[in-house]
């Protein structure tokens, strides 16, 4: 067990290699280019390959090909590049192919900016690509968690044959923290008898495909996939509760924002406000029942959602608690981060409103 100081973008690359990933396809875009640069240096040393594609579109389709061939494979990008990849993501979903896609989010829309944001919650969670489709989406809030979740992500992707997104942001990608990569151990990718690797005359041919002209067949396959999604929701949902035992005010936040909120919750507690935080770690599947139960247990009176966007998660929070509590929002966007004081002020205003009996 040894800790090293690493950037988030480098830590995920090293973690992927530890997970047995030997193929990386990418395209440069700030603030995630270090992933490709790190892979370019490291992959040849471990018998792997880092290939710079001509576009984000080509990169995700190289991922599709490698995954179809049975390989553990990943790509990474940032918001505008992820939008380009959405065609390939939909085909990966439709072809039941696993892979890891890292999104180091930046501000949008359009070219937006290069500073940290959580601008792609909806893109990742609601509209991964055209058609009825989902990715499993992980939202780490520290670099060690990026490493730990990378191992989980590859395993979950392979187990359920689904693409998985690691939804980070410019802050997590760029900042350095001590991490222990050895902690994830050595992972061996499972056998993939469905892969298109050449049948060697030993079996019937395998077809990797997302086209089904007969509507009955397509409906059946989509429904089968949604049964798998239900199983993922039951087995793979992750979340963290912080000081939630008696939290009258529940702050819901994920990723880097959750760290700011944790500090604010501690500060509120020092002021005698019973605040707590609920942090979804999987954004899809969303820990709806868990959030609802946590608020019910704590006797929560008011909910604050904080994000680095204009309120993309807030409806999922409202749905989780069946709109039975008032839900307020505090968001910064365009690459701006809230300070702990900003969040504290919001918690205090919710507390004051509650004491005054306001709705």
């Amino acid at each position: 067990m040894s800790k090293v100081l690493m950037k988030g973008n480098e830590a995920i690359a090293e973690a992927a290699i530890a997970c047995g990933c030997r193929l990386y396809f990418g395209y440069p875009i700030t603030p995630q280019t270090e992933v490709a640069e790190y892979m370019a240096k490291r992959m040849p040393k471990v018998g792997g390959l880092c290939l710079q594609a001509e576009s984000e579109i080509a990169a995700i389709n190289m991922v599709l090909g490698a995954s179809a061939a049975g390989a553990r494979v990943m790509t990474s990008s940032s918001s505008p590049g992820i939008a380009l990849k959405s065609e390939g993501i939909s085909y990966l979903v439709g072809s039941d192919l696993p892979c890891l896609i890292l999104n180091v989010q930046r501000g949008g829309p359009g070219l937006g900016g290069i500073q940290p944001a959580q601008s792609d919650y909806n893109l990742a969670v609601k509209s991964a690509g055209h058609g009825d489709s989902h990715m499993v989406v992980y939202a780490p809030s520290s670099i060690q968690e990026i490493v730990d979740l990378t191992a989980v992500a590859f395993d979950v992707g392979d187990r359920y044959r689904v693409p998985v997104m690691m939804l980070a942001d410019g802050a997590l990608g760029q900042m350095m923290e001590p991490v222990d990569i050895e902690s994830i151990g050595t992972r061996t990718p499972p056998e993939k008898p469905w892969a298109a690797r050449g049948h060697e005359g030993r079996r019937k041919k395998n077809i990797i495909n997302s086209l089904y002209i007969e509507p009955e067949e397509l409906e059946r396959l989509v429904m089968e996939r949604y049964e798998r999604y239900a199983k993922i929701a039951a087995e793979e949902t992750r979340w963290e509760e912080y000081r939630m035992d008696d939290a009258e005010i529940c702050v819901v936040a994920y990723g880097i924002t959750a760290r700011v909120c944790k500090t604010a919750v501690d500060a509120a507690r020092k002021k005698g406000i019973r605040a707590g935080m609920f942090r979804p770690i999987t954004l899809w599947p969303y820990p709806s029942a868990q959030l609802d139960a946590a608020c019910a247990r704590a006797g929560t009176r008011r909910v604050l959602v904080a994000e680095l966007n204009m309120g993309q998660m807030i409806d999922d929070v409202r749905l989780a608690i069946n709109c039975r509590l008032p839900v307020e929002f505090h968001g910064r966007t365009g690459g701006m981060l809230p300070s702990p004081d900003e969040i504290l002020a919001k918690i205090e205003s919710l507390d004051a409103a509650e004491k005054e009996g306001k709705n």
Partner: protein
Amino acid sequence: MAELVFGRPKALSDVPLTYCPGCTHGIVHRLVAEAIDQLGIEGKTVGIAPVGCSVFAYNFFECDMVQAPHGRAPAVATGVKRALPDRVVFTYQGDGDLAAIGTAETVHAGARGENITVIFINNAIYGMTGGQMAPTSLPGQVTTTSPYGRDKNIQGSPIRVCEMMATLDGVAYAERVSVDSPKNVLRAKKAILKAFQTQLAGKGFSIVEVLSSCPTQWGKSPSEALEWIRTEMIPYYPLGVYVDRTGGGEA
């Protein structure tokens, strides 16, 4: 005793093809399957199907198959080949797939010298969607989206793919053939075989462009369509080897 002298290639699936009567896709499928049989590589081959008329190619070849998004077959093939360098990987693509929406993937797979084989069907039209203008539609050609004839001042000029690909150092072998006559079918067969041999020898990217007919969308009888290949397409798209960096001459 009767001797069977002609039959279905083993690598061609025993299912009805979905192509229109008189379409030459069937001939090219057969040539690809014959090459796979002759080289004994069916068990180590992975084919990539495109979007377009040949989208169902995954049903027609007996090797493992992957169906790619529109135009992305060379990128998908790159992923398969880089994961499994000892496998034979080929794409089968039409002109809209390869030379319009997938131009970047085609050019860059060639530039990288990806050790894959591309079978490119050029029939100067979008067949599957009902006869729209292709990047290879000829000047003056009437299609549903160039109803007054392709005008180079409006829609530009057709792309000559083999000529373009031949400029790239990574392209080891590029040949344009036609399947309008038995003689040309035999030449096409040799070219397709050589393309696969180029890959097996690790020489790099190989592409065979096959001038092909589309009687349905051209509004011609099958024999008129073959004649149109001869009189209209071949003059614009001359047959021949555009680059051969395999160093070994003919196989």
